[in-house]
């Protein structure tokens, strides 16, 4: 099996796809396991939609190989692939009822109609659309249309379900509900889900593993926690959640701790990253929720601290969002939970000590 584990659902090897002169997907190698919820995350133009279309079979790679469930997909058209796609705009057939839409794939497969009826009913029940089977798509709400699209794909029991920005057209409240529902659905049916999204929160919430793409390349693959807490590059760090950063130069490395000199601030400490050498230019990054604000300087050497001025204090219910100005005039964001109602908040214009544990920072090579 040349190194590919038996539980692989999708294997992409060195896949390249060009559109005219632009390289949409650039030497992409990726293995997606059976039964996992895999998200491909990236900004628009990162090649994530092209990757999905290559898997669906609407486009053929210029180079490289794709295999799904152990079958090479070279030259296999979409209608003969064991995958189904949930389109971004749902692409429901407007001249067919909900039930006819859902039955379409089974009819095309040539299933006897005695089997189609129960399968359609089962699929509609799964997405809670019982009683709407005779409506036209135009008579449904956005959320209902999305569930029809899901049912229309899942009724075929594909090996892999592909989802193109599945929640993009829904309003925020509905999106949060569907994130949970989609994940629950995937766990129930046990099918491999591959979901393309530009929304990092969506990707983090729903996926078992995710890949971050940029300019057609795969930057990092890992669990949501790995990607969030240990981003491999400055792009990943800034694309996944908000990140604060300081540019500096590595002055010394002692064991697992690096000392970085930052112009206008002084020395800060951070855990070393792979391949780090003294003298290298690096970015020290730290998540806003890992920062603490205090009126008193730290006495404990395990913490980094910088004296800052509060530029803005924003009350957002569960937490306070602070914009703080560093001595080198960079602006950072800090989030402090409002868990302790008695703690005194900071006001704009106040001075404070910004602190963080050395282990909470991430060093990224520039």
């Amino acid at each position, binding site marked *: 099996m040349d190194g590919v584990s038996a539980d692989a659902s999708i294997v992409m090897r060195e896949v390249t796809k060009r559109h005219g002169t632009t390289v949409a997907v650039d030497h992409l190698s990726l293995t997606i396991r059976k039964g996992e919820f895999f998200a491909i995350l990236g900004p628009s133009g990162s090649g994530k939609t092209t990757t999905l279309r290559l898997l669906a079979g609407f486009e053929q790679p210029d180079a490289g190989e794709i295999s799904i469930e152990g079958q090479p997909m070279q030259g296999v058209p*979409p209608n003969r692939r064991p995958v*189904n796609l949930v*389109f971004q705009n749902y*692409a429901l*057939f407007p001249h067919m009822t909900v039930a006819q839409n859902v039955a379409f794939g089974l009819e095309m497969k040539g299933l006897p109609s005695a089997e189609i009826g129960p399968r359609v009913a089962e699929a509609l029940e799964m997405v809670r659309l019982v009683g709407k089977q005779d409506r036209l798509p135009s008579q449904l709400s956005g959320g209902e249309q999305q569930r029809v699209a899901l049912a229309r794909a899942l009724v075929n029991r594909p090996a892999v379900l592909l989802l193109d920005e599945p929640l993009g057209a829904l309003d925020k409240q509905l999106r949060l509900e569907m994130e949970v529902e989609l994940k629950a659905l995937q766990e129930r049916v046990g099918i491999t889900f591959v979901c393309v999204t530009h929304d990092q929160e969506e990707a983090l919430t729903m996926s078992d593993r995710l890949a971050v793409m940029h300019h057609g390349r795969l930057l990092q693959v890992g669990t949501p926690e790995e990607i969030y807490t240990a981003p491999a590059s400055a792009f990943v760090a800034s694309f996944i959640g908000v990140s604060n950063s300081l540019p500096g130069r590595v002055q010394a490395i002692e064991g697992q701790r690096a000392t970085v000199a930052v112009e206008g601030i002084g020395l800060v400490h951070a855990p070393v990253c792979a391949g780090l050498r003294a003298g290298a230019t690096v970015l020290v990054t730290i998540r806003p929720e890992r920062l603490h604000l205090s009126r008193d300087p730290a006495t404990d050497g395990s913490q980094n601290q910088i004296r800052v001025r509060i530029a803005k204090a924003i009350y957002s219910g569960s937490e306070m969002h602070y914009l703080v100005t560093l001595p080198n005039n960079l602006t950072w964001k800090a989030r402090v939970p409002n868990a302790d109602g008695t703690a005194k908040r900071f006001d704009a214009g106040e001075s404070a000590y910004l602190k963080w544990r050395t282990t909470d920072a991430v060093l990224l090579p520039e």
Partner: protein
Amino acid sequence: MKKSIPAKSFPWLVVPPAAALIFLFGVPLLLVFAVSFATRGTYGGIEWTFTLANYTSIADPLYLRIFWRSLWLAVLTTVICLLMGFPLAYVIARAPKRWQGILLFLVIIPFWTNFLVRTYAWMFILRSEGLLSTMLSALGLTREPLTLLFTDTAVLIGLVYGYLPFMVLPLYAALERLDPSLLEAAWDLYARPHQVFVRVVLPLSKPGVIAGCVLVFIPSLGAYVTPDLLGGARSMMIGNLIQHQYLVVRDWPFGSALSFVLMAGVLAALLYYLRAGGARSL
């Protein structure tokens, strides 16, 4: 912000077109209707004696054959235009945006020249020593000169040529609105290309198909210039028969009756189309 002007504040704007319709269309129509029940005078005038003879004499096999041929040619023209126009409209609708305008422009370009002149051009192409016959024999495809001109085939060619754009334009409008992701969705759901066409493309372009068929069928049925020039005396259509009654035989009452039977036929066909495709399609 400017307020939009409600249409009902200018009721008098409706007066000129309404008056034009009543005096230039409604009144002559009533007049023709009245004449169709009158009697032909001895020297071609109209005698106002009521008779149904004009309508009953249409049942003459000679005239019925002309009606039948007209209907047959119009149906054939519509079917051929649909079969030729659909792929053409599809290709235009799927072409890159900047090409669509140019291609549509090319479809409309023949309208820049007078229809009569273009029909004369077809006479030159179709006659026995004409362009088509010469080319085919030069290629060794035919031994004897082709005699196409003054046949039903020549009329059919002329009608298809003349009315194809009327089929392409509404079909284009319908196909251009067709969301390409619907075709991909069908493809993804195991449909083979011909199934994608039958189950998705065709039903969703039905309004365009119906509009195109109506726009081709009606003028084909009443065509006059094309059968007159390309068909000659043996391939008469209703339009030629009516003209013949008015101007040659000078039997205005019979010509009027023929006109009304033609109108009734068109109306019946139109109602059938509308029922088949739903009223919203026109």
